[in-house]
């Protein structure tokens, strides 16, 4: 029973990672390496929380969070797609900007909690039939609606990327923008759209932390989860389905320290808290050793596209 509740908690802890990872997959698939995930998550977290407190409406809170994440992505997109600035530097600046934005907006929010009406909305709901499956039901299908939204997003994204014409275009843009352009695909438009939608998903990931996971405002609520999401994209080999598994795994690592406290182990708390980050480093090492054309990243990742380049 303890194991099942641990796994169920891992899914919850993995949900903000899942949204951020899916957002970054979409962004990177179109050739944008946006390292501002952490920043966009923080922007989403603070705006979502603020709107939630003001309106007490969960839908508006989510829309606000998506808008904030998307806004961050628009800044990034304008700099890298239109002005062709360096993607890495721009992404890092976005992280710093997002953190500052959230700290400023959040000054008055410290100590505030999510209104009761919204807590009720985000209460775990057991899905009919699926929730009754032994073990699996308890782990995956007795969660809050936000978690289900994560599953749906991952599946929709998978179908979109691999089975639709538009998804194919996204992959072509990310792999070889020159080829996409020569085929009549508007490279800038695809980059902008997927960058912004990706940012909106990152914003949702942040909002899950402040609205459901904590659920109160605290400074630096993301605590480096945006960076783990960036590594998770590589771990998942840019595949939304694998991102689902990866997010649950890293969610588990995130809470394992807290759970182990009950067992009175002789390992320092700090070492266990390091786990997700150590695994992240390992993932990056394995990913760079494993070289495969099909499971590697998009070829055009990180390179601004200019049609008349000679």
């Amino acid at each position, binding site marked *: 029973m303890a194991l099942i509740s641990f796994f169920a908690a891992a899914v919850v802890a993995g949900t903000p990672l899942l949204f951020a990872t899916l957002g970054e997959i979409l962004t990177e698939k179109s050739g944008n390496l946006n390292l501002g995930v952490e920043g966009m998550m923080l922007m989403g977290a603070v705006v979502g929380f603020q709107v939630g407190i003001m309106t007490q409406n969960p839908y508006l809170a989510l829309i606000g969070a998506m808008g904030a994440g998307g806004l961050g992505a628009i800044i990034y997109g304008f700099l890298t797609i239109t002005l062709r600035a360096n993607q890495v530097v721009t992404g890092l600046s976005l992280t710093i900007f997002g953190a500052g934005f959230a700290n400023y907006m959040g000054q008055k929010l410290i100590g505030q909690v999510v209104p009761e009406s919204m807590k009720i909305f985000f209460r775990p709901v057991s899905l009919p039939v699926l929730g009754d499956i032994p073990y699996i039901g308890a782990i995956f299908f007795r969660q809050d609606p936000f978690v289900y939204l994560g599953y749906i997003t991952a599946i929709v994204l998978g179908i979109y990327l691999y*089975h*639709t*014409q*538009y998804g*194919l*275009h996204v*992959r*072509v843009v990310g*792999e*070889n923008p*020159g*080829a*996409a*352009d*020569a*085929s*009549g*695909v*508007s490279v800038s438009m695809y980059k902008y759209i997927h960058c912004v939608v990706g940012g909106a998903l990152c914003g949702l990931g942040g909002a899950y932390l402040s609205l459901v996971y904590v659920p109160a405002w605290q400074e630096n609520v993301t605590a480096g989860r945006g960076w783990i999401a960036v590594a998770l994209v590589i771990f998942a080999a840019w595949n939304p389905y694998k991102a689902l598994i990866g997010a649950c795994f890293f969610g588990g690592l995130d809470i394992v320290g807290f759970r182990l406290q009950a067992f009175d182990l002789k390992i320092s708390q700090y070492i266990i808290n390091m786990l997700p980050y150590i695994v992240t480093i390992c993932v990056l090492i394995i990913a760079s050793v494993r*070289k495969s*054309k*099909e499971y*590697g990243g998009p*070829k055009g990742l990180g390179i601004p596209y200019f*049609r*008349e380049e*000679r």
Partner: protein
Amino acid sequence: MNTNTLIKMENITKRFGTVLANKNINFSVKQGEIHALLGENGAGKSTLMNMLSGIYTPDSGSIFIRDQKVRLSSPRHAIAAGIGMIHQHFKLVEALSAKENVIAGEKKQFFLHSKKLSARIKEISQSFGLELDPDKKIYTMSVGEKQTVEILKVLYRGADILILDEPTAVLTAQETVQLFSILRKMKNAGCGVIIITHKLHEVMEVSDRVTVLRKGETVATVCTKETTPKALTDLMVGRSVDLSIQRIETTHKQSILEIKEVTVVDEEKVKVLNNVSFTLRTGEILGVAGVAGSGQKALCEAIAGLQKVNSGKIIYEEEDIVGKTPKEIIQKGISMSFIPEDRLGMGLVASMDMVDNLILKEYQNQKGFVLDRKPAQKKAEHLIHKLNIQTPGIHHPVRQLSGGNIQKVLLGREIDLNPRVLITVYPVRGLDVGSSYMIYDLLNEQKMLGVAILYVGEDLDVLLELCDRILVLCDGRVTGIVEAHSTNKEQLGFMMAGEEQWEQEVEVVD
């Protein structure tokens, strides 16, 4: 033959910064004709075609398609107008399958209908005599197959105007024959085909009309039947050019470099060189022929010490140089001018000027901590003078020089070190006729001085005329070493495809 005009380009002008790439160009293509576009590097052929395919937009001038004035401001417009372009560097996504590449850019449907698509692709392939597995991933394909995908992509969209930018540069003789038969089929189906190429014999073989560009202007449009390769070259260069390559006979041929059973295994555990043995002699040019990626790169890098050799020996003056560092090998007098596809890859640093590029190879011989640029400056000026390099000055970044001049800088630097062995890889790739002959002359000059030259080339005609012997590689194996004067293109083609032929090999005469 139908004489309806498909494309008419009138007074087209295009500038890049201060460079006038196209100046008042007039060009037209009729239905059912193959029209060749000739010109030296920088004559503006690719620029002109890129405007037709919507990649660039002309600064002034107008384009008519089927007598309708059009504005092709993006590739989408060009595609809608029935224009399909096959670029010199394929615009394909390596990680995707053939059919995914073919339908990229389509807008007709939301979901991908995999099976229907495969059937449609097979149907088109059969009607034009193409062979292709729609589910094969691009990165597992040969160059010829990749080109087939590009052609299919154009056909799938129902284009009736096909532009090919140097399509045969990377193909084997057999693949070229196949390509030409496809082009003729398209022509008979009423399409207009434009082909850009440097190879005159191909122009004569396949085209109906030829337009010659020089320095961004149209020089002439002639019917292929009424012209000769010589006349075309003269038009292209603007003066009379001698088209024969000399093969100088030298006497003192001594073996200098012996490659013995060399095997190289790459990262993916593939044998890129498999038990390769041959001897390189002073005062001779040994040509290396083979389809791109048959192990040429590994062979040259192994000799230069850049590639780890798994087994075998490379004997230079009775000493095994396997395992020595590139620096030690350079000091022994083995010089490699490696010219990869992009020319500026391994040989030179694009953003640095000539002086710094010269210092790159000699700084190790300098004493002290601070570089002394004076000798290199003198050398640069000497090279400019000796090789007639066209550059605004020795401090101009080499990136901005034309291809031929970059090549001269590279070869000039190598030759200046007085090497005993010179390895050149595709030294004339992408160069026009004039520059190519300049490079051949330079190589012949070195040969007369007794340098042993390994010449990795792709144009079989040139290999046959320039080299003394030709070594053929196929999948990392040597399929034959033949005397150049007693073989022909067909035989080389078969050897490149993997048929071993040894009877012509002549024993090394020391």
